[in-house]
């Protein structure tokens, strides 16, 4: 069947055809939604720890932390998406990612509610992005994909962390 048809069916299975662009995603929870980022970008996952504040920084930049001697800035994804914030708990997690911003490789962290799962997803079957929170969040989202019985929002990390 054509990709159009499969989109309409909202069917996503483990891709069988060789032409499928199969990518691994790490998903996490944020405000009860499941979001995914390409796992290749993920360096490690740490528990939340107090951070050093950067003066005069945007509210969604929580501060910097020490990653084995490197200073890494951390972004609160809820605030970046202008969602309501919650208190950090023991399951709050900082996902350390490597992204390319302005032609430079940077290591940054994103605070999420909790880590969810790892999926093999066929990028060819991604639907158009819905509106999550404010419409300003649209560029952050690559699209939607259905995994089993739920929808996962695929994020464009580089747009999120380029500010």
């Amino acid at each position, binding site marked *: 069947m054509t990709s159009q048809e499969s989109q309409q069916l909202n069917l996503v299975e483990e891709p069988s055809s060789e032409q499928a662009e199969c990518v691994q995603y790490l998903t996490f929870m944020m405000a009860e939604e499941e979001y995914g980022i390409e796992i290749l970008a993920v360096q490690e996952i740490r528990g939340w720890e*107090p*951070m*050093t*504040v*950067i*003066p*005069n*920084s945007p509210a969604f*930049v929580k*501060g*910097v*932390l*020490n990653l084995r*001697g*490197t*200073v*890494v*800035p951390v972004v609160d994804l809820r605030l970046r998406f202008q969602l309501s914030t919650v208190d950090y708990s023991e399951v709050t997690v900082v996902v350390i990612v490597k992204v390319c911003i302005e032609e430079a490789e*940077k*290591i*940054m962290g994103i605070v999420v509610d909790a880590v969810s799962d790892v999926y093999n997803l066929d990028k060819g079957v991604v639907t158009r992005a819905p509106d999550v929170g404010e419409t300003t969040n649209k560029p952050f989202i690559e699209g939607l994909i259905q995994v089993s019985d739920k929808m996962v929002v695929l994020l464009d990390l580089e747009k999120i962390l380029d500010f």
Partner: protein
Amino acid sequence: MSIDLSQFYEVFIDESYEGLEIMESELLHLEPGDVDSEIINTIFRAAHSIKGGSGTFGFMAIADFTHVVETLLDQIRNGERELESLHIDLLLKSIDCLRGMLNAIQNDEPQESEEAESLRQQFQTILDGSTQKASQMEEKVVDSATVEQIEPGSVDSIWQIHFAPLPHLFRTGNEPLFIFEDLAALGDVTITAELDSIPGLSELHPEDSYLSWLIGLDTKADESAIKEVFEWVEDDATISYKLIAQIDDLNQLNAEDYEQDPEPLDSNSNVEPMVASAQAEKSSKSEISVKTMTKSKLTDGASAKVDSSSIRVGTDKVDSLINMVGELVITQAMLNELGEAEEFNQEKLLALREGLAQLSHNTRDLQESVMRIRMLPINFVFSRFPRLVRDISQKLDKKVEIKMLGEQTELDKTVMEKLSDPMVHLVRNSLDHGLEPPEERIAAGKNEIGTVTLNAYHQGGNIIIEIIDDGRGLNTSKIRDKAVTNGLIHADDELSDSEINELIFQPGFSTADEVSDLSGRGVGMDVVKRNINALNGTVDVDSSPGKGSTFTIRLPLTLAILDGQLVTLGSNVYIIPLVSIVESLQIEMNKVNSVGGGLDVLRLRDEYIPILRLYELFNHHDAQKKLDNGLLVVVESDNEKVGLLVDDLLAQQQFVIKSLEANYKKVDGISGATILGDGSVSLIVDISGLIQLAGLKKAGRQGLDFNKPLSEAV
């Protein structure tokens, strides 16, 4: 036994780069027609070394190229040829070419290139021009040197050789035994000594040679191989060769009396065929398409030394290190012993404290020593400028000479490598825009030769580098106009001349109307400033119309370590660079004056120090807001003094500077970060950034503006 020569490559490449530097700097001291033999000899030796080494280690492209360079230099130093400016230019170009070739070796790229071949031919043309014979002779020798092996001929020859050494033979260190052994390697020998020349005992000189020998040799080797055996002693003996018989494959006996005069190997008869074959080789080489080098530096003239991953260190620095490590080991042993104590008491505690103090001292010394290893004289960067100035001034038809002072001033290797490009840009700028053409200079009553001076010296924990020219100075009104056009300032803004001049460092600023090949390539002064700021340094300009300009670069001596004062601001801990701290004090309220717009100043002795409320600048509302509840740290930056209001002072210590920008971005008022003992990150304040942040200083302004309300800044 086979030896891996690649272990010597790095040394060869390093010393070749050095040799090229020497060649270049000496060449720049030469004028056409010069006969300063010492200089020419030095240049020749450098080229000669490179040729020798490259041949030995198998870098044939370099060897061949250097060969023509060396030949030309040899002719010049022998007086066979007069030095012309064409030669100087060609030689300078060849140095660039060789740098490229060495670079190619390091990058595992092919050494050959069109430029190299074209240059080599230019040399060849000059050489062929007046000394046809010489070059032919060389080619002959090149090829004959390889003819060492015995031809695996099928012709068996029987020779009779008479070898009569002259009396002084032994004094050349030679021994007939060597000769006999070599002959024996060629075939079967029978040797008969002739004793008839030995004088009586009373006339016998023990150090002289009186014997002679008749040697029969049965060999398949050819004549030249036999003569080669005697090569070393040709002048020290009378030798005659007689071919008695030749037996070829078909076992036919050819009896020929073939006598030859004992003269040195004369292979002039062999020149033609060898030259022909060598030339044939060369022409086929040029037909083969050659890859152009990826890094072509010939037109650029700038030296292209790749950042080498090795450092030459003086043995004194290494000895110092070894001493320090020795002391460290002693301290460690002492602490170890204390640690193994059965019980701990007051006395041991005191000893422990002493030991720890000693450890701290040792570590600091060791650290300083290690830092010094990475310090090199700034001459490494300065040395490229004479060539640069020469090339550019020629291109611009200007007469410029360069002066360099303080070349031995040391700075960190990495800082130096990053300093190179900004300096080049500043010097180019001086040459392009600052210095006037000779006619204009004369009209202005100046010497027609302009001067660019590079000056480096240490000041406090910094290194200062000045680039001074005696040109026309900055055109302040033109800068002002451009700044207004570009929206950097308003038309009615009042700025002093020096403030206007500083505007050239703003992004998007360029007064180059024509895109001059040299400076106006969109690589503006703002990039220079950014590069220098990235090194934690500053750059300023000072100019006098008609007299010249001075660009001053200030850099910390080392990038990595900072002595800092920990301060608290609410729940936050910041670090103030110790080198900027003048003093810390509690504010006496009766000495505080309000100057309007929310700004307070403290009268300190005979100065007025503006008080910067850090908590406001950084938006930390859990900090002390009352002046008499906090502490004032008086700091200095760019000759401006300000006071930073903090909650409290904590420890002073050394910090390893970590970059905040690497993963985040530049933050106003912050110069970097560090990791504290508890693993948390602490930010290092940037004094001049804070001053700007407070709005006390507009971009480019000098002197603080007390009239600007703080509230506008934040």
